[in-house]
């Protein structure tokens, strides 16, 4: 992606946020008037471990350029251990995506607590920038959703 078009490219980003920590963190970021790009669409999930690999692939299919999963810090899961399982699953899935030639920077996992409004906004800002640099997702999407 040439530099000049980075400016006009508005990436579509899906953020899966756990109900108990990250979604509350996003809420706090909002009420604290911390800015993060409107390109990020948040989907609330009960726990980071609710995120099925299929959710991530479907998001790409329907036109997402990047997908980020946010959950409670390991050890702080509302359900005690959910995010530990999510961590293993996402580690394997991301490794597989890289293995079949999908840019590994299109996906990310961040642990964001309910108090970390600043971290939430910084994470989203940096992720959007990362996706802008990567450009449009062409390798993993359904052609029918493109036109």
């Amino acid at each position, binding site marked *: 992606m040439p530099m000049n078009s980075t400016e006009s490219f508005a990436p579509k980003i899906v953020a899966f946020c756990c109900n108990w920590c990250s979604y509350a963190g996003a809420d706090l970021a909002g009420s604290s008037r911390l800015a993060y790009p409107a390109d990020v669409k948040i989907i609330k999930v009960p726990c980071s471990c609710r995120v099925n690999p299929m959710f991530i692939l479907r998001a790409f299919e*329907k*036109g997402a350029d990047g997908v980020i999963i946010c959950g409670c810090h390991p050890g702080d899961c509302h359900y005690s251990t959910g995010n530990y399982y999510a961590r293993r699953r996402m580690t394997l899935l991301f490794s597989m995506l890289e293995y079949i030639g999908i840019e590994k920077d299109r996906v990310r996992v961040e642990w964001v607590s309910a108090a970390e409004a600043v971290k939430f906004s910084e994470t989203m800002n940096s992720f959007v920038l990362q996706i802008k640099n990567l450009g449009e997702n062409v390798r993993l999407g*359904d052609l*029918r*959703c493109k036109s």
Partner: protein
Amino acid sequence: MKKINLNKLKELFAYISEKSSLFLPIESANSINFGMYDEKAKVRLDVLKTSKSPKDLFFPQSETLYSCQSAKGKISIEPQALQNDEFVVFGMKNCDFAALEILDKVFLSEPVDTFYKARRDNATIVTLACARPSESCFCKAYGIDCAQGAGDVSAWIIGEYFYWCANTQKGVALLEKTAHLFEDADEADVESAKAQIRDIVAKMPLMSLDLKNWGKGKTAEKFDSPLWDELYKPCLACGTCTFVCPTCQCYDIKDYKAGEKVVRYRCWDSCMYSDFTMMAHGNNRTSQMQRFRQRFMHKLVYFPDNNDGVFSCTGCGRCVDKCPASLNIVKVIKAFDKEA
């Protein structure tokens, strides 16, 4: 009869593909299927059977029928354009061509399938005689002669030369267009090659398969046979046999939500799948035995019932080669023969 040296075939392909799309057996990632010719294509005319049959050139595995869009409270429908460009299919085998004639009975009878008809009308088909039939072939059982040509142009590869002659008006047109590349040939060369092929066919184990116990009006006799209960057991319920089959023609119609619009498409379906002919009330075939029976009864009994005794199988043998559980129509036919 015209001929051309095999090493000049590339010139012929280049010439044809300049004027229209050319489809022929191409090797890609260790698999040989019909594909569009370009300079880099690895053409494999020497290979007897492509993995998939060439039916998807006429009836693609998935194709869009139309799409709808909703804007300002109004729905607009955008029809899918028909395939109106001429194309050439090169190197189709006789069994596959015979299969196309079976598909014609389905798609060209009323109501005519316009998508299929457009492709059929625009295709010029060059069939290639089978120099080396394989053990899984049984076309002769259906009265197909793999030494004799069919389609618009019949072709043979004999020694260093490629021979062809036209059978139809479209074929004549193709031969005229490419006449400058060819030289005149002797009919006798081809006749002796045909005789050779027929000799080989006589030796192939499945060619003598007998179909006398099958065909019109056999439903009552076969349907309730306890044999089905035995035969289906190794079946994995995958769709390999139906998807590699040149005559299987069932399809499903679905809607795809593509953002702002909805795309209606059809895709091949398989009677082996549990959701085949799924309706609001459920499914009328609830066990794998019933689905398995359906496939063979359709090919060997129901289709002949509705089409003057023509079987919906041409003996290409792809199911024999490809079934992961080594089940196939031949085993079914033989099992019933043994019982009788």
